[in-house]
Protein backbone atom coordinates (compact mmCIF):
# COMPACT_ATOMS: atom_id res chain seq x y z
CA UNK A 1 0.00 0.00 0.00
CA UNK A 2 2.95 2.30 0.47
CA UNK A 3 3.93 4.04 -2.69
CA UNK A 4 7.28 5.50 -1.94
CA UNK A 5 9.36 7.37 -4.41
CA UNK A 6 12.41 5.29 -5.32
CA UNK A 7 15.33 5.69 -3.01
CA UNK A 8 17.83 8.09 -4.44
CA UNK A 9 20.30 8.17 -1.60
CA UNK A 10 23.14 5.76 -1.85
CA UNK A 11 23.02 4.87 1.84
CA UNK A 12 21.25 1.85 3.21
CA UNK A 13 18.60 3.11 5.61
CA UNK A 14 18.82 1.83 9.15
CA UNK A 15 15.70 1.49 11.23
CA UNK A 16 15.46 3.47 14.43
CA UNK A 17 15.43 0.21 16.34
CA UNK A 18 12.67 1.23 18.70
CA UNK A 19 10.05 -1.10 20.06
CA UNK A 20 6.56 -0.42 21.29
CA UNK A 21 7.57 -2.26 24.44
CA UNK A 22 10.03 0.53 25.14
CA UNK A 23 8.70 3.37 27.26
CA UNK A 24 7.29 6.08 25.01
CA UNK A 25 8.61 9.58 25.69
CA UNK A 26 5.79 12.09 25.86
CA UNK A 27 7.24 15.11 27.62
CA UNK A 28 8.70 16.42 30.85
CA UNK A 29 7.30 17.01 34.30
CA UNK A 30 7.65 19.95 36.66
CA UNK A 31 10.96 18.66 37.94
CA UNK A 32 12.35 18.65 34.44
CA UNK A 33 12.36 14.85 34.43
CA UNK A 34 11.31 13.03 31.26
CA UNK A 35 7.92 11.36 31.38
CA UNK A 36 7.58 7.97 29.74
CA UNK A 37 4.43 5.95 29.25
CA UNK A 38 4.11 2.23 28.92
CA UNK A 39 1.62 2.46 26.07
CA UNK A 40 1.48 -1.22 25.12
CA UNK A 41 -0.21 -2.30 28.31
CA UNK A 42 -2.34 0.79 28.88
CA UNK A 43 -4.98 2.74 27.03
CA UNK A 44 -4.55 6.50 26.96
CA UNK A 45 -7.29 9.09 26.88
CA UNK A 46 -6.32 12.69 26.18
CA UNK A 47 -8.96 15.33 26.61
CA UNK A 48 -9.26 19.06 27.01
CA UNK A 49 -10.46 22.15 25.29
CA UNK A 50 -9.74 22.81 21.59
CA UNK A 51 -6.19 23.95 21.04
CA UNK A 52 -5.02 22.38 24.26
CA UNK A 53 -2.44 20.17 22.62
CA UNK A 54 -4.18 16.80 22.44
CA UNK A 55 -3.24 16.16 18.83
CA UNK A 56 0.31 17.14 19.69
CA UNK A 57 0.49 14.42 22.34
CA UNK A 58 -1.14 11.85 20.09
CA UNK A 59 1.34 12.62 17.32
CA UNK A 60 4.24 11.89 19.67
CA UNK A 61 2.89 8.42 20.21
CA UNK A 62 2.28 7.92 16.49
CA UNK A 63 5.81 9.10 15.77
CA UNK A 64 7.19 6.54 18.20
CA UNK A 65 4.90 3.88 16.75
CA UNK A 66 5.97 4.31 13.14
CA UNK A 67 9.65 4.05 14.07
CA UNK A 68 9.05 0.81 15.95
CA UNK A 69 9.81 -2.61 14.71
CA UNK A 70 6.85 -4.94 14.25
CA UNK A 71 4.18 -2.34 14.99
CA UNK A 72 0.99 -1.69 13.08
CA UNK A 73 -0.99 1.48 13.26
CA UNK A 74 -4.72 1.96 12.86
CA UNK A 75 -5.50 5.64 12.66
CA UNK A 76 -8.86 7.38 12.99
CA UNK A 77 -8.88 11.06 12.14
CA UNK A 78 -12.00 12.72 10.85
CA UNK A 79 -10.02 15.94 10.51
CA UNK A 80 -7.51 14.18 8.17
CA UNK A 81 -4.60 16.52 8.79
CA UNK A 82 -3.66 15.57 12.34
CA UNK A 83 -2.81 11.94 11.67
CA UNK A 84 -2.70 12.22 7.88
CA UNK A 85 1.12 12.38 7.71
CA UNK A 86 1.24 8.78 8.96
CA UNK A 87 -1.42 7.50 6.56
CA UNK A 88 1.00 5.59 4.31
CA UNK A 89 2.64 3.93 7.28
CA UNK A 90 -0.61 2.86 8.88
CA UNK A 91 -2.36 -0.40 8.14
CA UNK A 92 -5.60 1.51 8.10
CA UNK A 93 -6.33 5.19 7.98
CA UNK A 94 -9.95 6.12 8.57
CA UNK A 95 -11.11 9.56 7.61
CA UNK A 96 -14.63 10.86 8.09
CA UNK A 97 -16.15 7.51 7.19
CA UNK A 98 -17.82 5.72 10.05
CA UNK A 99 -18.62 2.57 8.06
CA UNK A 100 -14.97 2.02 7.37
CA UNK A 101 -14.25 2.66 11.03
CA UNK A 102 -16.79 0.09 12.16
CA UNK A 103 -15.36 -2.50 9.77
CA UNK A 104 -11.85 -1.97 11.08
CA UNK A 105 -12.97 -2.16 14.70
CA UNK A 106 -14.74 -5.45 13.98
CA UNK A 107 -11.55 -6.84 12.45
CA UNK A 108 -9.51 -5.65 15.40
CA UNK A 109 -11.89 -7.37 17.80
CA UNK A 110 -11.55 -10.64 15.93
CA UNK A 111 -7.77 -10.31 16.10
CA UNK A 112 -7.96 -9.61 19.84
CA UNK A 113 -10.13 -12.65 20.44
CA UNK A 114 -7.81 -14.84 18.38
CA UNK A 115 -4.80 -13.57 20.26
CA UNK A 116 -6.38 -14.46 23.57
CA UNK A 117 -7.10 -17.93 22.27
CA UNK A 118 -3.45 -18.16 21.27
CA UNK A 119 -2.40 -16.99 24.72
CA UNK A 120 -4.69 -19.54 26.31
CA UNK A 121 -3.20 -22.28 24.18
CA UNK A 122 0.23 -21.16 25.31
CA UNK A 123 -0.79 -21.11 28.99
CA UNK A 124 -0.26 -17.38 29.31
CA UNK A 125 -2.32 -14.36 30.18
CA UNK A 126 -0.41 -11.51 28.62
CA UNK A 127 1.51 -10.87 25.44
CA UNK A 128 5.22 -10.28 25.95
CA UNK A 129 7.93 -8.77 23.83
CA UNK A 130 9.47 -12.04 22.68
CA UNK A 131 6.25 -13.45 21.28
CA UNK A 132 6.94 -12.07 17.84
CA UNK A 133 3.43 -10.79 17.50
CA UNK A 134 2.95 -7.31 16.19
CA UNK A 135 1.66 -4.51 18.40
CA UNK A 136 -1.44 -2.97 16.86
CA UNK A 137 -1.71 0.61 18.01
CA UNK A 138 -5.11 2.21 17.48
CA UNK A 139 -5.07 5.99 17.57
CA UNK A 140 -8.26 8.05 17.44
CA UNK A 141 -8.18 11.84 17.21
CA UNK A 142 -11.43 13.63 17.98
CA UNK A 143 -13.36 10.62 19.10
CA UNK A 144 -16.50 12.75 19.33
CA UNK A 145 -16.69 12.93 15.55
CA UNK A 146 -17.28 9.18 15.41
CA UNK A 147 -19.39 8.78 18.51
CA UNK A 148 -21.67 11.79 18.05
CA UNK A 149 -21.38 13.47 14.66
CA UNK A 150 -20.76 11.14 11.74
CA UNK A 151 -23.22 8.47 10.65
CA UNK A 152 -26.57 7.56 12.05
CA UNK A 153 -27.33 7.13 15.69
CA UNK A 154 -27.23 3.36 15.32
CA UNK A 155 -23.82 3.52 13.67
CA UNK A 156 -22.49 5.79 16.38
CA UNK A 157 -23.72 3.42 19.02
CA UNK A 158 -22.17 0.48 17.26
CA UNK A 159 -18.90 2.37 16.99
CA UNK A 160 -18.91 3.11 20.71
CA UNK A 161 -19.77 -0.47 21.60
CA UNK A 162 -17.03 -1.92 19.39
CA UNK A 163 -14.54 0.59 20.74
CA UNK A 164 -15.45 -0.34 24.28
CA UNK A 165 -14.80 -3.96 23.37
CA UNK A 166 -11.41 -3.12 21.91
CA UNK A 167 -10.42 -0.92 24.84
CA UNK A 168 -11.32 -3.56 27.38
CA UNK A 169 -9.80 -6.46 25.45
CA UNK A 170 -6.78 -4.91 23.78
CA UNK A 171 -4.69 -4.13 26.82
CA UNK A 172 -3.07 -7.48 27.46
CA UNK A 173 -2.80 -8.67 23.87
CA UNK A 174 -0.68 -5.86 22.48
CA UNK A 175 -3.51 -3.80 21.02
CA UNK A 176 -3.57 -0.51 22.94
CA UNK A 177 -5.91 2.37 22.14
CA UNK A 178 -4.96 6.03 22.30
CA UNK A 179 -7.90 8.40 22.00
CA UNK A 180 -8.25 12.16 22.05
CA UNK A 181 -11.47 14.04 22.54
CA UNK A 182 -12.63 17.36 23.82
CA UNK A 183 -14.94 16.91 26.75
CA UNK A 184 -15.49 13.27 27.57
CA UNK A 185 -19.02 13.79 28.85
CA UNK A 186 -21.53 10.97 28.87
CA UNK A 187 -22.76 11.56 25.32
CA UNK A 188 -19.28 11.40 23.80
CA UNK A 189 -17.75 8.70 25.92
CA UNK A 190 -19.92 6.83 28.39
CA UNK A 191 -18.33 6.71 31.84
CA UNK A 192 -18.07 2.94 31.52
CA UNK A 193 -15.79 3.40 28.51
CA UNK A 194 -13.84 6.27 30.02
CA UNK A 195 -12.95 4.30 33.10
CA UNK A 196 -11.28 1.65 30.96
CA UNK A 197 -8.53 4.07 29.99
CA UNK A 198 -5.69 3.54 32.43
CA UNK A 199 -3.81 6.68 31.47
CA UNK A 200 -5.64 10.00 31.31
CA UNK A 201 -4.21 13.30 30.20
CA UNK A 202 -6.25 16.39 31.00
CA UNK A 203 -5.25 19.36 28.89
CA UNK A 204 -6.63 22.78 29.70
CA UNK A 205 -10.31 22.72 30.65
CA UNK A 206 -12.70 25.54 31.31
CA UNK A 207 -14.17 24.20 34.51
CA UNK A 208 -13.38 22.06 37.52
CA UNK A 209 -16.16 19.79 36.43
CA UNK A 210 -14.66 19.07 33.01
CA UNK A 211 -11.34 18.31 34.64
CA UNK A 212 -13.03 15.92 37.02
CA UNK A 213 -14.76 14.21 34.13
CA UNK A 214 -11.40 13.49 32.54
CA UNK A 215 -9.27 12.60 35.53
CA UNK A 216 -11.99 11.06 37.65
CA UNK A 217 -14.21 12.27 40.42
CA UNK A 218 -12.66 14.16 43.29
CA UNK A 219 -9.31 15.24 41.91
CA UNK A 220 -10.33 18.87 41.41
CA UNK A 221 -11.28 19.15 45.07
CA UNK A 222 -7.81 17.99 45.98
CA UNK A 223 -6.30 20.74 43.87
CA UNK A 224 -5.56 18.77 40.71
CA UNK A 225 -7.56 20.65 38.15
CA UNK A 226 -6.73 21.29 34.53
CA UNK A 227 -8.63 24.57 34.69
CA UNK A 228 -5.61 26.19 36.34
CA UNK A 229 -3.54 25.67 33.19
CA UNK A 230 -3.08 28.98 31.40
CA UNK A 231 -4.80 29.08 27.97
CA UNK A 232 -1.53 30.21 26.43
CA UNK A 233 0.34 27.23 27.82
CA UNK A 234 -0.56 24.71 25.13
CA UNK A 235 0.70 21.22 25.68
CA UNK A 236 0.61 21.43 29.49
CA UNK A 237 -1.57 18.77 31.05
CA UNK A 238 -2.29 16.76 34.15
CA UNK A 239 -1.32 13.18 33.51
CA UNK A 240 -2.83 10.43 35.60
CA UNK A 241 -0.59 7.41 35.14
CA UNK A 242 1.57 5.34 37.44
CA UNK A 243 1.76 6.62 40.95
CA UNK A 244 -1.96 7.19 41.22
CA UNK A 245 -1.66 10.97 41.57
CA UNK A 246 -2.00 13.33 38.59
CA UNK A 247 1.26 14.90 37.54
CA UNK A 248 1.68 18.18 35.75
CA UNK A 249 3.47 17.58 32.47
CA UNK A 250 4.34 19.39 29.30
CA UNK A 251 3.91 17.29 26.21
CA UNK A 252 6.70 17.23 23.69
CA UNK A 253 5.82 18.91 20.44
CA UNK A 254 6.61 17.79 16.93
CA UNK A 255 6.38 20.51 14.34
CA UNK A 256 4.91 19.75 10.92
CA UNK A 257 8.43 19.47 9.51
CA UNK A 258 9.43 17.03 12.24
CA UNK A 259 6.35 14.95 11.64
CA UNK A 260 6.90 14.71 7.89
CA UNK A 261 10.61 14.02 8.40
CA UNK A 262 9.82 11.17 10.74
CA UNK A 263 7.16 9.83 8.40
CA UNK A 264 9.53 9.94 5.42
CA UNK A 265 12.29 8.26 7.37
CA UNK A 266 9.96 5.59 8.70
CA UNK A 267 8.69 4.89 5.19
CA UNK A 268 12.27 4.67 3.97
CA UNK A 269 13.39 2.26 6.66
CA UNK A 270 10.28 0.15 6.46
CA UNK A 271 10.39 -0.23 2.68
CA UNK A 272 13.12 -2.83 2.14
CA UNK A 273 11.62 -5.35 4.52
CA UNK A 274 8.12 -3.96 4.35
CA UNK A 275 5.92 -3.88 7.39
CA UNK A 276 6.80 -7.30 8.77
CA UNK A 277 5.30 -9.58 6.23
CA UNK A 278 1.55 -9.88 6.42
CA UNK A 279 2.20 -13.54 5.65
CA UNK A 280 3.48 -14.20 9.15
CA UNK A 281 0.58 -13.04 11.19
CA UNK A 282 -2.35 -14.69 9.41
CA UNK A 283 -0.76 -18.08 9.79
CA UNK A 284 -0.26 -17.40 13.45
CA UNK A 285 -3.86 -16.41 13.87
CA UNK A 286 -5.06 -19.38 11.87
CA UNK A 287 -2.97 -21.62 14.04
CA UNK A 288 -4.61 -20.11 17.03
CA UNK A 289 -8.12 -20.17 15.67
Amino acid at each position, binding site marked *: *MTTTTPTTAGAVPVGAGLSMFDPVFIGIDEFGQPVYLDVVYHNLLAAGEPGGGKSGLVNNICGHGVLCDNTRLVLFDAKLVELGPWRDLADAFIG*PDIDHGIDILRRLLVVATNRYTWLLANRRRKLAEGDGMSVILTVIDELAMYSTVLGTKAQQEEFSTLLRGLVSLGRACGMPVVAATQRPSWDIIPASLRDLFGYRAAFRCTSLNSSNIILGQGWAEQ*GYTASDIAPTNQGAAYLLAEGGVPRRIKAAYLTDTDIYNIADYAAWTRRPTGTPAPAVDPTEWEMAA
Partner: protein
Amino acid sequence: MSKSSPRRFGGKSTATVTVIEAKVHRSSARNAKMAFILTAVIVGLLSAVVAASYWHPIVALFVGALIGVPTGAVVWLLVRVWPVIRLLWWWSLEVFLAVVLLTCWVQLANHTPTVVTLLVVALVVGVPAAIPTVRRQVIAWTWCLIVRHRLRVCFAQFIIANQSGSLPLILWARPTPVGERVWVYLRPGLSAKDLESRLDKIAVTCHASTVLIERASESNAAYLRFDIKRREVLNARVGSPLVDVIDPTAPVSASPLTVPTALDLPDVDAPTITLPAQGKPAGKKPATTANGSKPAASSASDDTDDVSDWI
Protein backbone atom coordinates in the same frame (compact mmCIF):
# COMPACT_ATOMS: atom_id res chain seq x y z
CA MET B 1 -2.40 31.11 71.38
CA SER B 2 -2.77 31.98 75.04
CA LYS B 3 -3.73 35.55 74.32
CA SER B 4 -6.97 34.63 72.63
CA SER B 5 -8.19 32.29 75.33
CA PRO B 6 -10.38 33.91 77.92
CA ARG B 7 -10.15 32.95 81.54
CA ARG B 8 -12.88 30.45 82.04
CA PHE B 9 -13.22 31.14 85.77
CA GLY B 10 -12.02 34.67 86.17
CA GLY B 11 -13.34 36.17 82.91
CA LYS B 12 -16.55 38.12 82.79
CA SER B 13 -17.33 37.52 79.12
CA THR B 14 -20.65 36.14 77.91
CA ALA B 15 -21.34 32.50 78.56
CA THR B 16 -21.61 31.27 74.94
CA VAL B 17 -18.32 32.74 73.82
CA THR B 18 -16.51 31.47 76.88
CA VAL B 19 -17.70 27.91 76.40
CA ILE B 20 -16.79 27.67 72.73
CA GLU B 21 -13.44 29.35 73.06
CA ALA B 22 -12.47 27.44 76.16
CA LYS B 23 -13.15 24.23 74.34
CA VAL B 24 -10.71 25.14 71.65
CA HIS B 25 -7.86 26.59 73.65
CA ARG B 26 -7.29 25.86 77.24
CA SER B 27 -5.49 28.79 78.78
CA SER B 28 -1.83 28.43 79.47
CA ALA B 29 -2.37 29.76 82.98
CA ARG B 30 -4.69 26.89 83.74
CA ASN B 31 -2.27 24.41 82.21
CA ALA B 32 0.51 25.79 84.39
CA LYS B 33 -1.64 25.52 87.50
CA MET B 34 -2.49 21.90 86.72
CA ALA B 35 1.15 21.12 86.03
CA PHE B 36 2.18 22.75 89.31
CA ILE B 37 -0.34 20.79 91.37
CA LEU B 38 0.38 17.47 89.70
CA THR B 39 4.14 17.80 89.95
CA ALA B 40 4.09 19.10 93.50
CA VAL B 41 1.79 16.31 94.72
CA ILE B 42 3.54 13.47 92.93
CA VAL B 43 7.11 14.57 93.67
CA GLY B 44 6.15 15.52 97.22
CA LEU B 45 4.55 12.15 97.95
CA LEU B 46 7.40 10.19 96.44
CA SER B 47 10.03 12.14 98.41
CA ALA B 48 7.94 11.77 101.55
CA VAL B 49 7.82 7.99 101.09
CA VAL B 50 11.56 7.82 100.59
CA ALA B 51 12.21 10.18 103.49
CA ALA B 52 9.95 8.12 105.76
CA SER B 53 12.50 5.33 105.80
CA TYR B 54 15.05 7.68 107.41
CA TRP B 55 12.98 9.98 109.62
CA HIS B 56 9.70 10.12 111.46
CA PRO B 57 6.71 10.16 109.01
CA ILE B 58 5.67 13.68 110.00
CA VAL B 59 9.15 15.05 109.39
CA ALA B 60 9.17 13.10 106.13
CA LEU B 61 5.93 14.84 105.07
CA PHE B 62 7.55 18.24 105.62
CA VAL B 63 10.61 17.14 103.68
CA GLY B 64 8.31 15.95 100.87
CA ALA B 65 6.56 19.30 100.77
CA LEU B 66 9.91 21.11 100.74
CA ILE B 67 11.02 19.16 97.70
CA GLY B 68 7.67 18.95 95.94
CA VAL B 69 6.70 22.63 95.99
CA PRO B 70 9.94 24.01 94.44
CA THR B 71 9.87 21.28 91.74
CA GLY B 72 6.27 22.17 91.00
CA ALA B 73 7.24 25.81 90.78
CA VAL B 74 9.95 25.04 88.25
CA VAL B 75 7.48 23.08 86.13
CA TRP B 76 4.92 25.89 86.46
CA LEU B 77 7.47 28.36 85.20
CA LEU B 78 8.38 26.12 82.27
CA VAL B 79 4.76 25.74 81.24
CA ARG B 80 4.14 29.48 81.62
CA VAL B 81 7.08 30.45 79.43
CA TRP B 82 6.47 27.58 77.04
CA PRO B 83 4.93 29.89 74.39
CA VAL B 84 8.11 31.95 74.48
CA ILE B 85 10.35 28.90 74.29
CA ARG B 86 8.31 27.65 71.37
CA LEU B 87 8.61 30.99 69.63
CA LEU B 88 12.37 30.96 70.10
CA TRP B 89 12.52 27.42 68.71
CA TRP B 90 10.51 28.43 65.67
CA TRP B 91 12.83 31.31 64.92
CA SER B 92 16.01 29.55 66.06
CA LEU B 93 17.48 29.30 62.59
CA GLU B 94 16.85 32.96 61.86
CA VAL B 95 18.21 33.98 65.26
CA PHE B 96 21.28 31.84 64.68
CA LEU B 97 21.87 33.31 61.22
CA ALA B 98 21.44 36.85 62.53
CA VAL B 99 23.92 36.22 65.35
CA VAL B 100 26.51 34.74 62.99
CA LEU B 101 26.16 37.57 60.48
CA LEU B 102 26.32 40.27 63.13
CA THR B 103 29.34 38.69 64.77
CA CYS B 104 31.11 38.47 61.44
CA TRP B 105 30.30 42.08 60.70
CA VAL B 106 31.45 43.33 64.07
CA GLN B 107 34.67 41.29 63.93
CA LEU B 108 35.35 42.50 60.42
CA ALA B 109 34.67 46.12 61.28
CA ASN B 110 36.92 45.93 64.34
CA HIS B 111 39.89 44.34 62.64
CA THR B 112 40.04 45.95 59.21
CA PRO B 113 39.97 49.52 57.91
CA THR B 114 36.60 50.77 56.64
CA VAL B 115 37.51 50.54 52.98
CA VAL B 116 38.50 46.89 53.29
CA THR B 117 35.38 46.15 55.33
CA LEU B 118 33.14 47.64 52.69
CA LEU B 119 35.05 45.86 49.95
CA VAL B 120 34.68 42.47 51.65
CA VAL B 121 30.98 43.05 52.24
CA ALA B 122 30.51 44.13 48.64
CA LEU B 123 32.24 40.96 47.45
CA VAL B 124 30.37 38.64 49.81
CA VAL B 125 27.02 40.12 48.81
CA GLY B 126 27.78 41.04 45.23
CA VAL B 127 29.31 37.84 43.89
CA PRO B 128 26.35 35.55 44.75
CA ALA B 129 23.97 38.25 43.56
CA ALA B 130 25.77 38.44 40.23
CA ILE B 131 25.92 34.70 39.56
CA PRO B 132 22.40 33.65 38.52
CA THR B 133 22.51 30.06 39.74
CA VAL B 134 23.80 31.05 43.17
CA ARG B 135 21.30 33.86 43.40
CA ARG B 136 18.43 31.54 42.53
CA GLN B 137 19.59 29.00 45.11
CA VAL B 138 19.76 31.64 47.82
CA ILE B 139 16.30 32.96 46.94
CA ALA B 140 14.85 29.45 46.81
CA TRP B 141 16.21 28.54 50.25
CA THR B 142 15.02 31.86 51.66
CA TRP B 143 11.54 31.01 50.43
CA CYS B 144 11.83 27.71 52.28
CA LEU B 145 12.43 29.59 55.51
CA ILE B 146 9.55 31.94 54.83
CA VAL B 147 7.13 29.24 53.82
CA ARG B 148 7.57 27.27 57.02
CA HIS B 149 6.52 30.32 59.01
CA ARG B 150 3.62 31.00 56.66
CA LEU B 151 2.39 27.44 57.04
CA ARG B 152 2.50 27.80 60.80
CA VAL B 153 0.46 30.96 60.48
CA CYS B 154 -2.12 28.95 58.52
CA PHE B 155 -2.39 26.34 61.23
CA ALA B 156 -2.49 28.88 64.03
CA GLN B 157 -4.91 31.30 62.40
CA PHE B 158 -7.57 29.39 60.55
CA ILE B 159 -7.09 25.67 60.82
CA ILE B 160 -8.49 24.84 64.21
CA ALA B 161 -6.76 21.72 65.38
CA ASN B 162 -7.70 20.38 68.76
CA GLN B 163 -8.64 21.32 72.28
CA SER B 164 -5.15 22.02 73.46
CA GLY B 165 -4.35 24.07 70.36
CA SER B 166 -1.24 22.11 69.51
CA LEU B 167 0.12 22.91 66.07
CA PRO B 168 1.35 20.34 63.53
CA LEU B 169 5.07 19.80 63.46
CA ILE B 170 6.46 21.58 60.43
CA LEU B 171 9.49 19.55 59.47
CA TRP B 172 12.05 20.35 56.82
CA ALA B 173 11.49 22.14 53.56
CA ARG B 174 13.39 22.13 50.31
CA PRO B 175 13.09 24.06 47.06
CA THR B 176 11.57 22.51 43.96
CA PRO B 177 11.60 24.01 40.47
CA VAL B 178 8.07 25.31 40.95
CA GLY B 179 8.27 26.42 44.58
CA GLU B 180 8.85 24.54 47.79
CA ARG B 181 8.09 21.16 49.25
CA VAL B 182 7.46 21.02 52.98
CA TRP B 183 6.98 17.93 55.12
CA VAL B 184 4.50 18.20 57.95
CA TYR B 185 3.56 15.88 60.77
CA LEU B 186 -0.04 16.36 61.84
CA ARG B 187 -1.11 16.25 65.47
CA PRO B 188 -4.39 14.67 66.55
CA GLY B 189 -7.42 16.60 65.31
CA LEU B 190 -6.38 17.17 61.71
CA SER B 191 -6.33 15.06 58.59
CA ALA B 192 -5.32 15.48 54.97
CA LYS B 193 -9.03 15.69 54.09
CA ASP B 194 -9.53 18.67 56.43
CA LEU B 195 -6.67 20.49 54.79
CA GLU B 196 -7.87 19.82 51.25
CA SER B 197 -10.87 22.09 51.71
CA ARG B 198 -8.56 24.98 52.59
CA LEU B 199 -5.94 24.68 49.88
CA ASP B 200 -6.83 28.05 48.40
CA LYS B 201 -6.46 29.81 51.75
CA ILE B 202 -3.15 28.10 52.41
CA ALA B 203 -1.95 29.23 48.98
CA VAL B 204 -2.91 32.81 49.78
CA THR B 205 -1.15 32.73 53.13
CA CYS B 206 2.00 31.32 51.55
CA HIS B 207 1.95 33.97 48.81
CA ALA B 208 1.79 31.09 46.33
CA SER B 209 -0.27 30.16 43.33
CA THR B 210 -1.48 26.72 44.36
CA VAL B 211 -0.82 24.20 47.08
CA LEU B 212 -1.13 20.45 46.79
CA ILE B 213 -1.08 18.02 49.66
CA GLU B 214 0.05 14.44 49.37
CA ARG B 215 0.70 11.73 51.86
CA ALA B 216 4.40 11.29 52.42
CA SER B 217 4.14 7.86 53.95
CA GLU B 218 2.12 4.81 53.01
CA SER B 219 1.87 3.66 56.60
CA ASN B 220 1.32 6.89 58.48
CA ALA B 221 -1.56 9.21 57.65
CA ALA B 222 -0.12 12.00 59.79
CA TYR B 223 2.95 12.45 57.67
CA LEU B 224 2.15 14.81 54.77
CA ARG B 225 3.97 16.60 52.01
CA PHE B 226 2.93 20.09 50.96
CA ASP B 227 3.82 21.08 47.42
CA ILE B 228 3.75 24.84 47.19
CA LYS B 229 3.74 26.18 43.70
CA ARG B 230 4.64 29.77 42.91
CA ARG B 231 6.17 29.54 39.44
CA GLU B 232 5.05 28.07 36.12
CA VAL B 233 8.02 26.25 34.67
CA LEU B 234 6.38 24.31 31.86
CA ASN B 235 6.27 27.19 29.43
CA ALA B 236 9.03 26.36 27.03
CA ARG B 237 8.47 24.07 24.08
CA VAL B 238 9.73 20.54 24.66
CA GLY B 239 11.43 18.82 21.79
CA SER B 240 11.09 15.15 21.05
CA PRO B 241 14.05 12.77 21.02
CA LEU B 242 12.52 11.13 17.97
CA VAL B 243 13.92 13.85 15.73
CA ASP B 244 17.42 12.79 16.81
CA VAL B 245 17.06 9.16 15.81
CA ILE B 246 15.94 9.90 12.28
CA ASP B 247 17.82 11.01 9.23
CA PRO B 248 16.12 14.17 7.96
CA THR B 249 17.45 13.62 4.48
CA ALA B 250 15.29 10.58 3.89
CA PRO B 251 13.58 10.66 0.50
CA VAL B 252 10.10 12.11 0.50
CA SER B 253 7.43 9.48 0.45
CA ALA B 254 3.73 10.13 0.04
CA SER B 255 0.90 8.38 -1.65
CA PRO B 256 -0.84 10.55 -4.23
CA LEU B 257 -3.99 12.23 -3.00
CA THR B 258 -6.90 13.35 -5.13
CA VAL B 259 -7.28 16.91 -4.01
CA PRO B 260 -10.81 18.25 -4.41
CA THR B 261 -11.11 21.44 -6.42
CA ALA B 262 -14.20 22.81 -4.72
CA LEU B 263 -12.37 24.77 -2.09
CA ASP B 264 -14.75 27.68 -1.74
CA LEU B 265 -18.41 27.91 -0.90
CA PRO B 266 -19.60 28.99 -4.39
CA ASP B 267 -17.74 26.00 -5.84
CA VAL B 268 -20.01 23.59 -4.03
CA ASP B 269 -23.41 23.52 -5.70
CA ALA B 270 -26.38 23.65 -3.41
CA PRO B 271 -28.09 20.49 -4.76
CA THR B 272 -25.03 18.34 -4.20
CA ILE B 273 -25.56 18.53 -0.47
CA THR B 274 -27.80 15.66 0.48
CA LEU B 275 -29.11 16.52 3.87
CA PRO B 276 -29.80 13.18 5.51
CA ALA B 277 -26.71 11.47 4.11
CA GLN B 278 -23.92 11.90 6.57
CA GLY B 279 -20.45 10.60 6.78
CA LYS B 280 -19.07 12.03 3.54
CA PRO B 281 -16.24 14.53 3.71
CA ALA B 282 -18.20 17.16 1.85
CA GLY B 283 -21.15 16.94 4.22
CA LYS B 284 -20.89 20.04 6.33
CA LYS B 285 -24.10 19.47 8.24
CA PRO B 286 -23.83 17.80 11.60
CA ALA B 287 -26.25 15.03 12.32
CA THR B 288 -29.44 16.59 13.47
CA THR B 289 -30.28 13.33 15.17
CA ALA B 290 -26.77 12.85 16.46
CA ASN B 291 -27.56 12.60 20.10
CA GLY B 292 -30.04 13.75 22.66
CA SER B 293 -27.93 16.61 23.85
CA LYS B 294 -26.35 19.71 22.43
CA PRO B 295 -26.28 19.32 18.64
CA ALA B 296 -29.90 18.27 18.49
CA ALA B 297 -31.02 20.98 20.87
CA SER B 298 -29.38 23.75 18.89
CA SER B 299 -31.32 25.10 15.96
CA ALA B 300 -30.15 25.04 12.36
CA SER B 301 -28.95 28.62 12.63
CA ASP B 302 -25.87 27.75 14.65
CA ASP B 303 -24.90 24.64 12.76
CA THR B 304 -21.50 26.02 11.93
CA ASP B 305 -20.83 26.73 15.56
CA ASP B 306 -21.47 23.13 16.40
CA VAL B 307 -19.18 21.79 13.77
CA SER B 308 -16.34 23.97 14.87
CA ASP B 309 -16.98 22.88 18.44
CA TRP B 310 -16.40 19.28 17.59
CA ILE B 311 -13.53 19.51 15.19
